[in-house]
Each structure stands twice: as structure tokens, then as C-alpha cells.
């Protein structure tokens, strides 16, 4: 029974690590190529792609000619380059150790 309990033990809860990598999305929103780890949910990849593409489209409508977007979150940087209606998107996690100032919140 002790042996069986090895298999019936409760799985350890996991949290999603921020991915490092890039992906390409075409003008219709299809992900073409990706170097992101497969553990990062596809729904989130699509969500990032959608928001980036929409921002480029709306910038054009507002007569802003943008070739690149850089979104700085405290722990992740998203860099997106416009590709004829699609985008090449890089996700770069930011290492806390190289972010001075965050510790001063304590």
C-alpha cells in the first residue's frame, strides 16, 4: 500500500514561468514560428499577438507611423516589430537582480 501511495500522492501545484523567446504572427493572427517553451500556454501567446497587432493597426489609424513597440512590465519586456500587418515579437524576462530599486519597496 505504501508503494501505491507513491502514485496516488497529490500533484505539486505549479506556476507558469515567464517565457524567454520569440514568435512570429502573420496579418491574419496565425502564429507562424515560435521559439517559446511549450509550457507557456498557447492562449497567452495568441493574446499577446492580438494586442500587439491591434495596437499597430490603431496607431496607423491615428496617423502614427510605428515600426516597433516596446512594452516594459516590471518583470517582462515585450518587443514587437511590425511585419506587413503581422509582427515579430520577443519576450524578455527581466531579472530582479539587475533591476535596482525594486528592493527599496520593502
Amino acid at each position, binding site marked *: 500500500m505504501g508503494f501505491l501511495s507513491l502514485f496516488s500522492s497529490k500533484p505539486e501545484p505549479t506556476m507558469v514561468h515567464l517565457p524567454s523567446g520569440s514568435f512570429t504572427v502573420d496579418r491574419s493572427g496565425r502564429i507562424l514560428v515560435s521559439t517559446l517553451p511549450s509550457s507557456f500556454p498557447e492562449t*497567452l501567446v495568441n493574446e*499577446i499577438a492580438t494586442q500587439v497587432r491591434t495596437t499597430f493597426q490603431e496607431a496607423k489609424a491615428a496617423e502614427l507611423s510605428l515600426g516597433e513597440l516596446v512594452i516594459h512590465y516590471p518583470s517582462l519586456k515585450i518587443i514587437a516589430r511590425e511585419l506587413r500587418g503581422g509582427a515579430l515579437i520577443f519576450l524578455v524576462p527581466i531579472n530582479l537582480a539587475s533591476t535596482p530599486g525594486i528592493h527599496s519597496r520593502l
Partner: protein
Amino acid sequence: MATKHKILLVDDDPDLLDMYREILKQLPSAPDIQIATSGARAIALLESEPYRLLITDLKMPRMDGLQVLSIVRRKHPNLRTVVLTSVMDEQFRARVYAQGVDLFWQKPSTEREIDMFRDCIESLIERDDQAGFRGVQSKSLVDLIQIECLSQSSSVLRITNGPLVGKIWINHGELFDAEAGNLQGEEAFLHILSWKSGNFEVMPSEPRHARVIQKSYNALLLETVQAFDEAQAGASNPTAESGMRPASDPISQLSGLEFFVALEQGQTKPAEARNIENPERLAEWTRTTLKRFHELGDKLQLGQPDTVLGLGLQGHVGLTQQGKTEFCIGWRYSLDAAEVRKSTKKASALWAS
């Protein structure tokens, strides 16, 4: 009679919950402690009654601690939050702070750590809600300078307000000098005192620093208060109403600035627009873009973006937010991305000050 503060403890391990409850029961303020074994249960409890503090684990099944914090930040922005975890991953630590938590604690294992944990929690729940400079809670910068001068201290106060940094030299209780950006002496002192909040640190004194400010701190503080009163009285004059600032103001002097738009949340017309005609379209794009990336930050459990930069061959734009004000600031194409980000944060902090 003072009301008892309520603390909500969240962890999927009931044994740990019992242990922490016993630890927190010993706090001098004797708070009322409630427990929840899941994130969903914690959210339901927070909806049902007001709490002073939430202490949550990170690794929990179904809804993890980051998800709980993400919901809490949106629904209960004033709730104080503490993460108590065995996860010592720097990335998760960064993401937790990005969600605006007050403390990130490794689960205490020794008697000394438990004592420290108890002290921190007590200080957190008893802390006043008023704004102030971190380090001396609910004290204004004027109070802080008075304390240093009255106690005849010698020190250098380093004050930061977002990207703005100022220094004040005090020797034997006398103001010697101040520095903020390109400003020096009395002008810099006045400028630093206009900052409403920020962080400070007391650094070792520099006794050899030359005295630039000759006035006593009392005279200078009095002048500062008078200057603020005059500025407030002048806030309703025609120049202020037109949304224009004098050409000598520090935002206009930022290198590479092309245009500047400030938007108050809930207002359709920009609060200020400089060097740009018909800013409404740009204002609309700014609002939707910031909202979009705030929502994306929630979904990815990243907190709020500090800047969104748009880079182009004709020029760049930097979007950011300070409190309830959103900014869209145009920069010359010759600036690189790092300069655009730094200047955007600086311009918005100057405007908010």
C-alpha cells in the same frame, strides 16, 4: 474603542494555516484572523467583509497566489498584502512586487525569523494610510528636514521621486546645499519640496561639502510654504486655465521633446497638450493602448506596464501613467529606446510634481 483589524491567511496546507494563526494571535494589536484554504475561498471572503491585510501563499492548486493578488489589486486596491512562500525564485519575487504587494516573506523557520515576521506584520497593519515618504511613515519632507535640523544632525538626504533624484546636505543642523537635476542651492531645495511623495535615504554626512545655502532652514521653509501658497492661488489664473506652462518649465527643456499630451481619466479633453494640433485622436489611441496593456499585464500576472514605447522612423512616442493621469509624449527620432523611456518617465514625473 479601537476596532480590531482583520487578517486573512491563505494557504492550501491546513497545518501551516493553524501554525501561522497561532503566531499572529500573539501580535500586540490582537487582530481577528480568518483563514482560507484556496484562492477562490479567499476572494469570496474578501467580498463579504473588509480586511486590513491579506497573507497568501504562492503555490496553490487551481488559483495560485499570483492570480489571487491580481484579482485583489483590481478589486481591493487599498488592502495590504503579504506573500508568505517557500518559492525563492527571483522571477516570482519580481512578479509579486510588480503586483504591488507590501512584503515578500520566505516562510519563517527559526524563532528569530518568526519574531521578525510578527514585527513586520504588526508594523504593516498599524501603519497609517496617509501618503508620506517611505522610511518615516506619514511624515512630510518638511517634517523630515526639521527633525534633522532640530537634532543638529549632519547627513545627506537622498530623495527620489520616480526617476527624479534630489540631494540635501545638512551639516550640524544647518542646510548647506541642495541639488536636483540641473538645479542647485535654494532653487533645488524649493523644487525637491514640491514633490508630494517618494523615497528617501539618509546617507553619511559630507562635512567638506561647500555651503551654498546661506539662509537658516526656518527662513527657507517659510519661504517655501509662501511660494506654494502663491502657486496655489495662481492656479486659477488665465495661463493655468489655458493648460500652458511657462517656457522655462523643466519639461520644455527636456532634450528631444516634440509634443506632450496629458490626459485625466474620465475626461474626454486632454488636461494639457503642447506643440500638437488636434490631439484628440492621439489621446484616444493613448487611452486604448494603455488600457489594453494593463489588461494584458493582468492576464499574464505581470502587474502594470511602466511604459509603452512606439518607435518610428519619423519620431517616437512614450506612453505612461502617473496616478490617474495618462501621458503621450512625442520624442525626436534621434533618441534611442532607452532614452525615450527614461525621458518619458522623467517628463511625466515632472508634470505630476
